[in-house]
């Protein structure tokens, strides 16, 4: 029994039994706390995944509108402006910064978009023709990119939460399935070892007592024989040592228990 299962390498002493008991208690508290944390995070996580799902769908629509506004530009400008745009891009007007949000002790970064208005690479694009469409298209795409940034925040939160939840769950499971059983095992082991020791002790004392008794009997017999040799009829002496032995036995029992 005590050999089966995993247990901590401790000496089965009363002191370590105490340690183990407090460890078990700690593990149980930790387990319930982590479990609650994991639940809170999972709740949040589910919320986020739901929002990601929604946002991804929304993105589909927003990007479609944006793509359509680009089609309008192509229509109005009457040609391809792609290359020119690519070449005149110099400084990002649209940028993001990152801030943190604390969710149940986990720092989730969130992107926040901002524009640097002084950077305007395309102010003159479509000057002769279609400029208004170009500007409108820029606005539409800016809005679309904002949606994308929002989605990216959610997604980053998702990735991080996913990681965190995995770690927390791993801990919960480790406590639940490894640490607690192992501590319990150890306690059981210590208990059984201590019981074993008790039984051994008991048995040993019993043996000692028996030996003593036997020795006494032998000694008595020898004495009786001696006496018999000297005085053939004297049986009252047998009771004397026995009464003494009973006293001795009581004393021994006190020691044991």
């Amino acid at each position: 029994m005590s050999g089966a299962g995993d247990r901590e390498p401790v000496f089965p002493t009363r002191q370590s039994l105490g340690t183990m008991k407090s460890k078990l208690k700690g593990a149980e508290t930790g387990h319930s706390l982590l479990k609650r944390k994991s639940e809170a995070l999972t709740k949040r996580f589910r919320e986020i995944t739901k929002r990601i799902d929604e946002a991804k769908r929304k993105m589909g629509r927003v990007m479609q509108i944006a793509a359509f506004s680009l089609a309008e530009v192509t229509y109005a400008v009457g040609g391809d402006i792609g290359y020119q745009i690519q070449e005149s891009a110099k400084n990002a007007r649209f940028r993001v910064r990152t801030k943190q949000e604390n969710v149940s002790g986990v720092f989730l970064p969130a992107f926040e978009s901002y524009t640097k208005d002084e950077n305007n690479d395309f102010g003159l694009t479509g000057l002769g023709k279609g400029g208004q469409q170009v500007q409108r298209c820029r606005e539409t795409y800016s809005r679309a990119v904002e949606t994308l940034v929002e989605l990216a925040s959610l997604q980053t939160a998702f990735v991080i939460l996913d990681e965190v939840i995995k770690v927390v769950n791993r801990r919960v499971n480790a406590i639940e399935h490894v640490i607690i059983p192992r501590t319990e095992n150890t306690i059981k082991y210590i208990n059984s070892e201590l019981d074993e020791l008790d039984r051994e002790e008991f048995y040993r004392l019993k043996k000692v007592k028996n030996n003593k008794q036997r020795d006494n009997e032998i000694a008595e017999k020898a004495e009786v024989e001696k006496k018999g040799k000297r005085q053939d009829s004297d049986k009252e002496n047998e009771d004397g040592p026995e009464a003494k032995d009973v006293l001795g036995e009581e004393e021994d029992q006190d020691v044991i228990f």
Partner: protein
Amino acid sequence: MEGLFYNVNGGYVEGVVRGYRNTLLTGQNYSNLTQCETIDDVKLQLSPAYGDFLASLPPNPSTSSLADKTTDKLVAEFRYIQGQATGTLAKFMEYLTYGYMIDNVALLITGTLHERDTRELLERCHPLGWFETMPVLCVATNIEELYNSVLIETPLAPYFKGSLSHQDLDELNIEIVRNTLYKNYLEDFYRFVNEHPEIRGTPTAETMSEVLEFEADRRAINITLNSFGTELSKQDRKKLYPEFGRLYPEGTLMLSRADDVEGVGLAVSGVHDYKSFFDTVGGGMNSSGPGNMSGGSGSDGKSLEDLFYQKEMEISKGAFTRQFTHAVIYAWVKLREQEIRNITWIAECIAQNQKERIGNYISVF
């Protein structure tokens, strides 16, 4: 009198172009197109008009490849006419291509400025703006070299001369370069149709003047509207206005001073057509986005650009009422371009499932 000898040289070409005009899509065709559910349907509807040109497209082609193929047809027909043209007509057709050349050159300049391999840009160039020395432009690796040894060999050299130095190419925004070139081109074209001894006083001069004046005004108005809120100063802006047109000189002067849309409206109020455009648009040129071209928030109203396109098409259509003139070629090219834009637009609407806006094409037949 001019009609007496026009047919000696230009009669065949004019006849061909009138034939081409009859193959332009009509309102009936367009309404069929708008009923289509897929691009394949569009392709099918277009097959009588475009036939072989669309045959090589894969099933459900992208809208851009559709536009490419329809442009191919325009180019092929243009080349055919160009091959037939002689005398002033040949020269006239060359002028037609200069506009596209400007776009191509602007593209190549952009490429050179950013030290790209300009060779891959050649396929992005508009085929109508192709000129023989264009591949040579790719040889140039820096702007100075490009300017001194290559650009002066192109037909556009006169447009660079006098108004743009090679430093300008380096420093100015490419859009300003492009618009300067375009202004010079329009003025040159205008001079050509009004001063060339064989064209002066013919219906060609009359019709083309109208078309070019309209084009010049349109550019001036657009440049003004689009330059609000950019680093383009009023002086620089004024330099981009073509120096002719119905707005010139009072209107353009007022345009050059305009600070906002109302100012533009005031500047053009001298010309009835443009005034009515502005009235239609109704001062809604603000950021809220008027007209059907506004991204996403479209309504039935027309934007100023739409009205200009519409007007251009009407002028082009009107050109066909005249006989013995080169202007029909110009008109045909413009109509065909609009048709390509319409097809692309309709295809785009179908591809992107934006059916409610599909009716925003411009059809004049």
